[in-house]
Every structure is written in C-alpha cells, then in structure tokens.
C-alpha cells in the first residue's frame, strides 16, 4: 500500500500545491494560480511533450480548475489524451474531460469516436473508464452513437462493466426517456443478475421508470418484496454489509421503489406489509444507518395503502427520533411526522412539546423543517399562531430564497384559513412590508382580487368592512419609508377603488396621499402609473356622485409632470385623467362605474360589431378579406411543418463509420436508432417477469446463502438490539402502548409514579419555563382535540398539558403528573450520542493561521495530545523508529538534492524529535476505531506518509495537527 500513499508528482507541482496552501489570502492564491496558468499555457503547447509530463500538466489543469479558475485552454489536450493507447494516460484523459466538460460542450463530439472504440476494448478497465465518461458526457444528441454498444455491455463478463452499463443507460433515461424506452426488458433482466452490485445498480433506473409510471411494473412487486426480504435476512455476501447492516443502501432503494408501487394500490401494498413490518421491528436505532432504514420505512408506510399496525410501528419510531438528542434524528422525526400526519392527524399531539422545542431550536435547518410540519397541520383554529411565527421568522432571516418561500407559504395559509378579514389584511400587510419585493406579483393581484371580491360571504356589511379595514391600515402604513413596489401598487389600487367608498375620508385627503406616494417613489414608474389611475378613479367617483372636483395643487403638478413624461404609458394615463375630469356625470359613470372592478368585461374576439361596416364596404366594391394561409398559398401549414421536422431528424449527426463502398446493396443505411433496436432480440415482457420472480428467489439464495451467513443474524441482533431507548420510551407514551412492538415497551402504569417522584425536584424549576411552551402547544395543537377548547390561547399551563390526553376528564387533578412527564420527556433523551462518531473531539481548535505557514518551520518535539496516547504505542515505538531511520537514511543518500529541506537538517538530533512526532502519528492510528488487523499496516503507512511529506518540506508541527489527523480518527 506504500505506493498508494506516495506523491508521484514532480517537485514543481508539489511546490505549487504547497504555495497555494501557504497563501494567506484569496488574492494571493489567485496570483499564484494565474502564474501557474501562464506556465501551463506555455508548456502545454510545446511540441513533443513526454506522456508522463503531459499527464501531470492535465492534473495541474484539474487543480487550477478546481480552485475556480478557467482552464479551458487545456481542454483540447485532455480530449487528446483520451485518444492515447496507454491506459494510464487514457484514464487521466477521461477523468479530466469528465471534470472539465458539461454534456453540452462542443468538444464532446471529438470524444465520441474514442468512446465508441474504447467501449469495444477487450480490456475491461478501458471499458470502465469509457463508461464513466459516457455517464457524464453523452448528451441527448449523441446517445444513439453509443447506445447499441452499451446494450451489448449489459451482458459483459465483468460485473463492474455490467453495473456501469446499467448506470449509463440510467443516465440516458434521465437525459432523454424515449431513447431507452425500448430497453426496459433489459433492466428487468439485470434485476436478477448474479452479482448483487449489478442488481443494486439496476434499482436506480427502475426507480426512475416506476416513478414516472408505476403501472407496467406492478408484476414486480413480489420480486422486489422477496429481494428485500432476502437482503434484510443477511443473504447477500458479507462485503455488502455496512456497519453490521445487511446492504442498507440496497434496502433503502427497495423501500423507495415499494413506496411508489404501493401508493394507492391496496393489493400491492398487502404484499409488502410483512416485510416492512419486519424491517421496522428489527430496525437498529442505535446506528445512523439503521435509522436511515427506519426513516425510509416510515416513508414507505406513509405512501402505501395504510395499515394500522404499520402506522403504529412507524409512530413509535417517530417518537424515538423526536426524543433523541441528535439534531439529525429530530429533523428526520419532524419530517416523518409531517408525512404521517395526513394519515393519522392525532399523532402530532403526543409530540407537541418536542415539536415546539424544535421550533425554538437555534438550528435553522430544524426550524425550517418544523415550519414545514406546521404548514401541513394548519387549521383555522391555529392559523394565527402559526402564521405569526412564520412571519416573525421571515423577518429575522436574510436568505432571500427562503424568505420568498416562507412568504408565499404565509400568504397561502392566510388565504385559506383566515379567521377574520382584519387579521387577513394585517397579515398580508406584514408579508408585503417585509418581503414585498420577493413575493410573486400574482400574490399581489390575488390580494387585490380578494379585497374586491371578499371571501365569498354574501354579506354586504362584511365586504365593506373588509375594504374599509384595508383602507385604514394602508393609510397608516403609507407613511413608512421604503415600502416594496408591489405593496405600493396594491395600496394605490385599493385606495383608488375604495378610498372614498365608506365616506370616512374625503377625496382630497386620499388624493393628497396618492400624490405623496407618487412623489416619494418618483423613480418607480409602475407605482406612478397605479397612482395616477387611482387618482382618475377617485375623481371619476366624485363627478359621478355629483360633487364638484377641485384638484389639489400638488395633484395638478403631478398630472402636468406626467403629461410630459418620457413614458408613453404614464402620458396616456395622465391624458385620460384630464379627459375624464372634463366629462359630465353621466359619461363618467359609464366609463368608470363605481365598484365594478369584479365585473367581467366581455371581449368580442370576432369583432362582430364591425360586420355591418364590412358589409357596407364590400357592397361598395372593396376586396373581401383573404386569410393568411390562402394568401401565401399553403394549404396546410401544420402538415408541412411536421414534414420539415422529420427531414431534420434524418439530417442529424451520424456516428457510424462510413460503410465500405460495396456493390449496390440498397437501403442498408437506416437511421441509427433503428439499427440499434434490431440488435436486440425482442423478448416478450411477460416472460421476463416470470423469469425475474423465479430467479430472484432462487438466484440470490443459491448465490450467497451459505449457512454461516444465516448464523450471523442472531449475534448481530443481540449486539445491536434494543438497549438504550427503553427508559425514555417508557416515560413518554403512557397512553399509547402497543403490544405489537413490545420490544422497548415497559408497563408504564407501574413505573410512572416513581418516575414522577424522581423528577419532582427538577420539575419545579422546569415548570417555570414550561407554561410559555405549553401555551404555545395548546394554541398549536389544541384545536384538534376537542371542540370545547375554545379559548385556546388563554389557557393555563397545566390545563394545556392535559390536552395531550383528552381522556382525562379531570384535568385539574393530574396537572402535576402530566407536566412532570412532559419534562421527563424533554429532559431524558437517550444517553448516547448517535451521530458523533466521526465528529472531531476538538482538542485542538482549528488554527486561526493557515497550517501551512508552520509547515516550513522545523520540528517541534512537544507534539501535543497525540503523544499522551496509549502505552501500546510507546511499546511499538522502537521498532517504528528503526523503520523510520531506515527511511531517512535512504532518502539522504538517494535523493538529497531533491529534498528542499536538504540533508543537513536531518541530523541525529532532529531525527530524534522526528521520532517523537512520528510516535504521535502512530499513536493516533492505533487508537483509530478500524479493525485491529490493519493497525500494523496503518502505522507503517503513516510513517511512510510522514517521511514523504517531510521530504517535501512539510512538517507536522503541533500547531497544525489537523492536516495529519486521520479523518476517521
């Protein structure tokens, strides 16, 4: 393994990486990279570069591009390198082009030919490299060029090739579903491939296919279920285990597919109940991957035709997630809750405090997820609290993307559930005020329409009340500085329509306000247009009502200004205003009738009112109208166009080689896509289906099912089984015990008293915080429990907690107990930290200075924490030191000139301190949690690494242990 840890690049390249590492600012880094680009530009175009050099240049280009600079000048060289016969160069070439190019790049066309050739290669590594490139680079246009070759590779001898071929077809399906639609039978066949890797890969395209249309695949339900069952029973080879879980990634994919197939399909779902139930029951909630499977199972349960037992089991898992200490699990729990809530709305209630905790969590991600959940459970009883919370959060964030999103959510909820007009207007005002520029203009139009039409009540009083409350609030808001344009438009429109409607405000007051607005936002033409139109309307209403109009002087000047505006739209509006004012009451009434914004205006598209006029003209000798088609002499344009399209299809790019000019064998030149289909022997689908079922049940088992695999099951279960969750689970859902998942349940009735007493002391202080939360809980969740809970927001803490358990008729008698449990539920998360396996222990805070700075400086024997490691490491040290000495001496003799730190530095003294540092590194590796058998090798690896790094002038000092730190350590 030593060679793998080595750095085979030239000194020049190593120096580049090093200097980039030492760069103190982005600007400095950019300077270095630009210099490097110059060098590469010069070098790469030199003639006769040796292959090895060229390869390195390409890798340097990759590096440059990775740092965000443009290396496009070198793309062509990368393309050229893919043509190379040497696999090593070819591989580098392919790596480079896949990283450089998107599938729409012009250079792709130059690679297609090489890919074609390589797909036919007899070296499977070449084929693999080409397939990697195919997945990334082949676009819709070039698919036909490689498709037949890839289909052939589906039955290649090497499983790696088959797997990649399947994935390539999947990527084709994504780019152009029609291109592979005739190949579905091949996917079905690959599902029973001997190699589990290929089978797993096949699930990817099948998932997409089923996602688009599940119906043709219903026959596969049984096969999928049986595969899932076998996977879950450890029937795959052990190498697919991941953290003692049998092929979890395959399981998750299968669960996803089952969710699609079982959605809204009772018979199919019934096949799945047992296996999903088993998976949930056996689920290992102590490891992250176990939880991933559990979560996926919940998703499946919520998607397929519902089953009470499974829902109950899922609810238990969710309870565990929510009670966990890990933010990740809480997040997943909230998400799962949101999925299940549609099916059993009551489930959220027992978790109300957990949900509120998540809502108040400082973690934005968790908070947003919780808003998502709240959005799903909004009802007219809790809409006020939820939308208020959302708006509060919306105001506090600066992320425009999310702000837009949550604003539209608020609007949606407000429109749907608004308890009162007044509240609705207030809410919309807040949304517009704080996120006005971000919301869709449609929302504004919607609001205007709502104000005009009301909420569908027939009550006239409610209408006018809605409008006048809108007018009132807008008149109040108008004075605030810097309102968003969309909001101003709404304000102008509403003031124009309804400003004077209820008679509270005089026309001159409203027009004055409108003029102020037009002036304050004088560079927003749309607002000005809205304002002037509003003015027109108000004057029109005045005239129609028979009152005399006198225009304020400021309005006068505004109109005059707009009459001379550069915008023709504004000009026209101003002239219209002038014209309207000059008319008498009757005419004005006809032009701008009062409160007619909702009347439909009928547009006569046929212009039938002109018929008489036309008739007259024709009679007096005018030419009749000739339609456009007739004029241009085309009888049927649509037909023509489709013909044209066909034509162009045939003129598309062709990727086959030209044929050898043979004697006339006519009509051999069929379009590419056709020729590809003929390569396949079409087999009837039903045949495959049957085959699938048989083989998948037999094939997998016979392939892998040796008896010792089965034995593992028990041991694993015991080791990873139930441990930690039992206590918190028992303290919480006292009301919902289910015998099915008896695993973690303890009879609560007996334990509950002692529990309550135990936590009595801590409860007191808890109670002081709780009422606030419980109040919130009550207002969020209370509405659904019972109808008598009218005054939800004003209810007191203990009472609110009683809402959790509606059976308790005497809420007052048990408040203590109830709230005590609640605190328990919050207070007692499972003890262990599920997800922090790899989380650094942060003994050394990340250095503020760049670590590379210190690299150059020579050794520091005080190698902090690592030295204090286990005694085992120290015992090993002599051996290792011997090894190390060997290294350094050979290095001195062999390549002193190469060493930037030069041989002098490596005197005995520094070597000693080296050894100390080395011991640090080995110590670290020895405590690494990997399997014990590799430890020895690891220690050696790190030694070698250390040696090499040192040789380049990078020294592991105590200030920058991070760079040398095992990622998994």
């Amino acid at each position, binding site marked *: 393994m030593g060679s793998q840890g080595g750095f085979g690049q030239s000194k020049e390249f190593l120096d580049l990486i090093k200097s980039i590492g030492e760069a103190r600012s982005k600007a400095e880094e950019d300077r270095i990279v630009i210099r490097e680009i110059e060098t590469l530009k010069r070098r790469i175009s030199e003639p006769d570069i040796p292959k090895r050099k060229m390869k390195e240049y390409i890798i340097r280009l990759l590096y440059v591009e990775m740092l965000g600079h443009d290396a496009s000048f070198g793309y062509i060289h990368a393309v050229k390198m893919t043509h190379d016969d040497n*696999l090593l160069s070819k591989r580098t070439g392919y790596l480079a082009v896949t990283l450089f190019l998107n599938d729409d790049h012009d250079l792709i066309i130059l690679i297609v030919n090489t890919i074609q050739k390589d797909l036919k290669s007899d070296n499977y590594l070449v084929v693999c490299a080409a397939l990697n490139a195919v997945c990334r680079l082949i676009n819709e246009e070039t698919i036909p060029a490689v498709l037949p070759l890839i289909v052939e590779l589906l039955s290649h001898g090497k499983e790696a090739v088959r797997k990649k071929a399947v994935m390539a077809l999947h990527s084709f399906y994504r780019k152009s579903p029609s291109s592979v639609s005739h190949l579905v039978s091949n996917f079905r066949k690959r599902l029973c491939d001997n190699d589990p890797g290929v089978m797993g890969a096949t699930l990817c395209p099948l998932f997409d296919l089923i996602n688009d249309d599940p119906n043709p695949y219903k026959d596969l339900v049984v096969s999928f279920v049986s595969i899932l069952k076998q996977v879950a029973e450890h029937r795959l080879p052990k190498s697919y285990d*991941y953290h003692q879980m049998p092929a979890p990634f395959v399981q998750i994919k299968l669960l996803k597919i089952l969710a699609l197939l079982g959605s809204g399909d009772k018979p199919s779902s019934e096949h799945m109940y047992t296996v999903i139930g088993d998976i949930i029951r056996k689920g290992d909630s102590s490891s992250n991957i176990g939880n991933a499977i559990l979560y996926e199972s919940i998703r499946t349960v919520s998607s397929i035709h519902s089953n009470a037992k499974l829902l109950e089991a899922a609810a238990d898992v969710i309870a565990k997630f929510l009670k966990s200490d890990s933010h990740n699990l809480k*997040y997943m729990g909230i998400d799962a809750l949101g999925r299940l809530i549609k099916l059993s709305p009551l489930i959220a209630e027992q978790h109300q405090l957990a949900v509120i905790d998540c809502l108040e969590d400082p973690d934005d991600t968790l908070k947003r997820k919780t808003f998502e959940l709240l959005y799903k459970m909004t009802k007219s009883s809790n809409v006020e609290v939820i939308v208020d919370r959302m708006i509060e959060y919306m105001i506090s964030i600066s992320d425009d993307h999310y702000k837009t999103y949550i604003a539209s959510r608020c609007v949606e909820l407000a429109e749907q559930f608004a308890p009162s007009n007044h509240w609705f207007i207030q809410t919309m005002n807040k949304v517009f005020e704080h996120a006005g520029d971000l919301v869709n203009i449609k929302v504004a139009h919607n609001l205007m329409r709502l104000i005009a039409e009301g909420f569908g009540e027939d009550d006239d009083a409610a209408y006018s009340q809605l409008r006048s409350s809108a007018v009132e609030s807008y008149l109040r808001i108008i004075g605030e500085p810097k309102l968003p344009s969309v909001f101003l438009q709404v304000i102008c429109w509403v003031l124009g329509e309804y400003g004077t409607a209820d008679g509270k405000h005089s026309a001159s007051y409203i027009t004055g306000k409108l003029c102020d607005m037009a002036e304050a936002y004088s560079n927003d033409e749309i607002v000005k247009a809205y304002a002037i139109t509003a003015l027109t309307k108000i004057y029109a209403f005045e005239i129609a009502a028979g009152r005399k109009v006198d225009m304020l002087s400021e309005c006068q000047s505004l109109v005059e200004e707009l009459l001379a505006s550069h915008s023709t739209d504004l000009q026209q509006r101003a002239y219209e205003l002038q014209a309207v004012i000059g008319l008498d009451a009757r005419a004005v009434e006809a032009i701008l009738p009062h409160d007619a914004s909702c009347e439909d205006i009928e547009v006569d598209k046929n212009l039938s009112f002109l018929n008489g006029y036309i008739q007259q003209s024709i009679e007096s000798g005018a030419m009749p109208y000739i339609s456009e088609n007739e004029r241009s002499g085309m009888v049927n344009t649509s037909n023509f166009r489709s013909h044209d399209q066909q034509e162009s299809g045939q003129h598309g790019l062709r990727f086959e080689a030209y044929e050898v000019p043979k004697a006339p064998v006519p009509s051999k030149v069929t379009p590419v896509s056709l020729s590809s289909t003929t390569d396949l022997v079409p087999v009837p689908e039903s045949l495959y289906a049957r085959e699938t079922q048989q083989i998948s049940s037999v094939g997998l088992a016979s392939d892998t099912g040796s008896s010792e695999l089965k034995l593992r099951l028990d041991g694993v279960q015991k080791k990873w089984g139930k441990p930690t969750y039992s206590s918190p689970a028992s303290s919480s859902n006292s009301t919902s015990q289910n015998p099915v998942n008896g695993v973690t349940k303890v009879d609560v009735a007996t334990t509950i008293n002692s529990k309550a007493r135990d936590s009595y002391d801590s409860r007191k202080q808890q109670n002081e915080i709780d009422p606030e939360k419980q109040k919130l809980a009550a207002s969020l969740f209370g509405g659904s429990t019972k109808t008598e809970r009218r005054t939800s927001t004003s209810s007191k803490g203990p009472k609110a907690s009683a809402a959790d358990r509606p059976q308790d008729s005497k809420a007052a008698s048990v408040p203590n107990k109830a709230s005590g449990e609640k605190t328990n539920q919050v207070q007692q998360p499972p003890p262990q930290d599920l997800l922090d396996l*790899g989380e650094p222990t942060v003994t050394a805070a990340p250095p503020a200075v760049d670590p590379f700075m210190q690299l150059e400086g020579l050794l520091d024997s005080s190698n902090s924490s690592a030295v204090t490691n286990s005694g085992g490491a120290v015992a090993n040290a002599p051996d290792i030191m011997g090894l190390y000495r060997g290294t350094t001496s050979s290095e001195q003799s062999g390549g002193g000139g190469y060493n930037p730190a030069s041989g002098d530095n490596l005197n005995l003294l520094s070597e000693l301190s080296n050894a100390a540092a080395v011991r640090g590194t080995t110590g670290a590796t020895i405590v690494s949690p990997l399997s014990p058998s590799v430890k020895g090798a690891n220690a050696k690896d790190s030694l070698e690494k250390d040696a090499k790094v040192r040789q380049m002038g990078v020294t592991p000092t105590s200030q920058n242990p991070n760079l040398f730190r095992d990622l998994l350590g």
Partner: protein
Amino acid sequence: MIHFVLLISRQGKVRLTKWYSPYTQKERSKVIRELSGVILSRAPKLCNFVEWRGHKVVYKRYASLYFCMCIDDTDNELEVLEMIHHFVEILDRYFGSVCELDLIFNFHKAYYILDELLIAGELQESSKKTVARLIAAQDSLVETAKEEASSLSNIIAQATK
C-alpha cells in the same frame, strides 16, 4: 440524485469538487462560496443538513475536512450521510489512515475512487471490497508504468517496505 460532491477544509479551501448536474464555472464558484459560508459557520451538534435553494446539502466534518453532498429534496438525508461515511472509509482503507494531506496531494486519486463509488449522481456500488478491488486493478497498471519511470518516491516506497 446527488448534484455535486464538495470537499472543503476548515479554512474554506477546496479539496475536491465533483459535479453531477451541469453547472458553469461561474455557478460553481458561486455555489462553493455560498456553501462554504453556510456550512463552515455552523456550530457543531446541529443538524448535518442544510436546506439550500430547494435542494438539501448533507455535510459531515472529518478532522478539518468537510464532506458535502447536495441532494434532491426527496432524498433520504441519513442515507446520504452514510454514503459520505462510506466514502471516507474507502479512502481510509486505500490511503491507510487517510488524512487531509493525502487528499491534498492525491486529489486525482480521490476522484478515481469517487468514480467507482458514485456514477451519474447515484451510488453505484455499496461494497467496499468491490471498490477496493477495482481501484487496485487500475493501480496495478499504474504501478508498472511507474516502475519504468523509476521515480524517487518509488525507491523510498521500496526501502520502507
């Protein structure tokens, strides 16, 4: 589907980027800038997920290195978190106690490994052994080529064996 994989150091330096969905160079820089701002500033113990422009980014810190994957809204975050771990374990096995320095100097090798693990934004192989075998097969070819070149590092490697 995974849209991209990103490795950034604690200092915000890019160690590896792999794009499975089309992004222009400009967009790439923007994505990296934005995400490193978001992710590096997150406190430990928070969720390993960030919602970002309609997608989700799952990240995990290993020593001083952040591994990030951007996925669809409908994907299973915990699964992706384990994919990251899976990748790190494979790297660890390959490099032998992998550290950031390995990835700095051997980033192209990390790419090769990633290519055997993920393809077109999907997990193509969940067996560590299979990935290791394929990489080894490719490396053995590299080895022969290297021996011809008889580079210095090779001599050192020999000496320490």
